[in-house]
């Protein structure tokens, strides 16, 4: 197990394989498929202070190499999350599987209240601050329109809690670097990226956009090269731990993320298509380290060597 350990700053994980918010429910949906507690961690569905119905259907559309979603942060609200799942989360944590809550709000106060509630339960190892959901008009995304506004939010959160803060960044930017720096300067412990790309699909028969919101969030294997690009840029901007994601579909993909400087990875959309993918990646990674007789840390070092030249 310690072959796969991740230890960097506040990022302590038994292995680097996590799940991405919104694509893994609350974890228990995957228990029929494999023992979720084997993972390095799970990120739960984006959570708001009050329950949220989410967007009207359709919410999903398939495109080349991926999908568009317009879920709109549908969720049962922080209180119900804790009521329903805290026991399950604590059992995961007991097995060394980190539980990350993805936090969303319209106002700074929303974030702070969720954090207050979360802090009091102790059933989350990390708070992932989502400032990058493209599917709600108000809220999160507003904080990612400029680095300063985002910094203010993170700063307030930092003052409120000692729990490690992950800031989840949007790829819909000219350069990720100012956002990374602002997150770091405001006290973030970890950077995660990328959230979905903004995308549109038109239904030619109805002559209307497929989604009522017009645009939606684009994810899946198709966006991998873009994710790698942003993560590489983020890596060059900070020494904070980075959790990388965006289209991971197989073992090689995962190594590519390590090679641009990700310290851990999340699988998103592919969980929906292949619910055992994270488990398969874990087994493969274990074998790979054993066959190469090297801990993951060494393998990452080799993969990132090119950046130091």
């Amino acid at each position, binding site marked *: 197990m310690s072959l796969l350990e991740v230890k960097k700053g506040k990022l302590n994980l038994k292995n680097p394989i996590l799940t991405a918010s919104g694509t893994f*429910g609350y974890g*228990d949906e*995957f228990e*029929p498929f494999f023992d979720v507690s084997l993972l390095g961690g799970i990120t739960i569905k984006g959570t708001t202070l009050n329950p949220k119905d989410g967007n*009207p*259907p*359709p*919410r999903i559309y398939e495109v080349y190499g991926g999908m568009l*979603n317009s879920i709109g942060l549908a969720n049962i609200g922080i209180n119900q999350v804790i009521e329903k799942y805290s026991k399950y989360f604590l059992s995961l944590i007991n097995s060394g599987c980190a539980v990350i809550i993805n936090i969303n709000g319209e106002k700074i106060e929303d974030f702070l209240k969720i954090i207050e509630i979360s802090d009091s339960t102790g059933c989350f190892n990390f708070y992932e601050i989502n400032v990058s959901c493209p599917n709600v008009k108000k809220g999160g995304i507003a904080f990612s329109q400029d680095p300063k506004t985002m910094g203010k939010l993170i700063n307030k959160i930092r003052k409120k809690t000692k729990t490690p803060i992950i800031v989840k960044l949007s790829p819909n930017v000219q350069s990720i670097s100012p956002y990374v720096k602002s997150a770091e300067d405001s006290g973030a412990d970890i950077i995660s990226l990328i959230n979905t790309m903004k995308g549109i699909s038109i239904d030619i028969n109805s002559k209307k956009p497929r989604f009522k919101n017009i645009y939606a969030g684009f994810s899946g294997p198709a966006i991998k090269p873009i994710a790698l690009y942003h993560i590489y840029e983020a890596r060059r901007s900070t020494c904070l731990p980075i959790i990388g994601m965006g289209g991971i579909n197989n073992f090689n993909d995962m190594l590519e993320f390590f090679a641009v400087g990700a310290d851990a990875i999340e699988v998103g959309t592919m969980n929906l298509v292949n619910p055992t993918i994270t488990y398969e990646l874990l087994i493969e990674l274990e074998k790979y380290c054993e066959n190469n007789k090297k801990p993951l840390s060494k393998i990452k070092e080799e993969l990132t060597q090119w950046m130091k030249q």
Partner: protein
Amino acid sequence: MLKKDISDYDVFITKNDKINENYYLLGISRPSGFDIMAGQFVNIKIEPNSIQPFLRRPFSVFYLDKYEIGILYQIKGEGTKLLSTKKNGTKLKMIGPLGTSFPLEDSFMKNIDGVFLIAGGIGIAPLFFYANRIKAKYEYLDINLIYGIRDGGFLLPEDYIKYYFSSIFFSLERKKVYEENIYSGCNCKFFEGNIFSALNSFEFDSLIKKYNNPIFAVCGPDPMLKAFIEWNKDKYFESYLSLESFMGCGFHACLGCAVPKSSGGYIYLCEEGPVVYYKDINLQ
């Protein structure tokens, strides 16, 4: 909370036959221990090693044999077109059993004195399986089928259909006279138009009067379901509808399959559906 019977199975195709101008009958190897109820569905990855088509495709079960799962499907788009080219032995991935089923508990069924299945096109698939399951347990129950199809090119072979039904009302959008003669062994009536040409007929009226506590199970395209709900507004027949929606996962992980609830908010069709009680949802 755990649904331990759901799994992602490695299966293979045991048959894939074109059975009329529009429908294919797919046989899939039944994994040991796999069971499924009428109305539930499976979510199939047609090309396990490719990212195209990307998502899985949901299908109801048409029949369940000891070694085979039967699926009746039509070509809709890219995925089903590809599926129709697959040969026996082709490997698929199949998640199931998923979702809700049509009512079949003793406590419920003992109060029922008749069943009306209302199928639009390929909607026959789960209803056919339902008829099979009802007959297996409650042989005495009358099952009547109201079956709306475009034309004779959608008719199922007679031996698929003739065993279970006390009577069949066919609505054909484009009726041709010869089609009346296709089924010999059954108590069939033929109407021209959509299913309401049957449901509003004199013959249906006299048939329905025979039952005190009939239930309706309905499956078909959205417009038909909406029209059925409208039709049922002043009739209050106890009805169970099997719906469709785009699905990201099929096992309640993505919240992609939202359908508006009548009480506000949404149900998630892969878990609280596809079979829903007619009062619970609000088709828009």
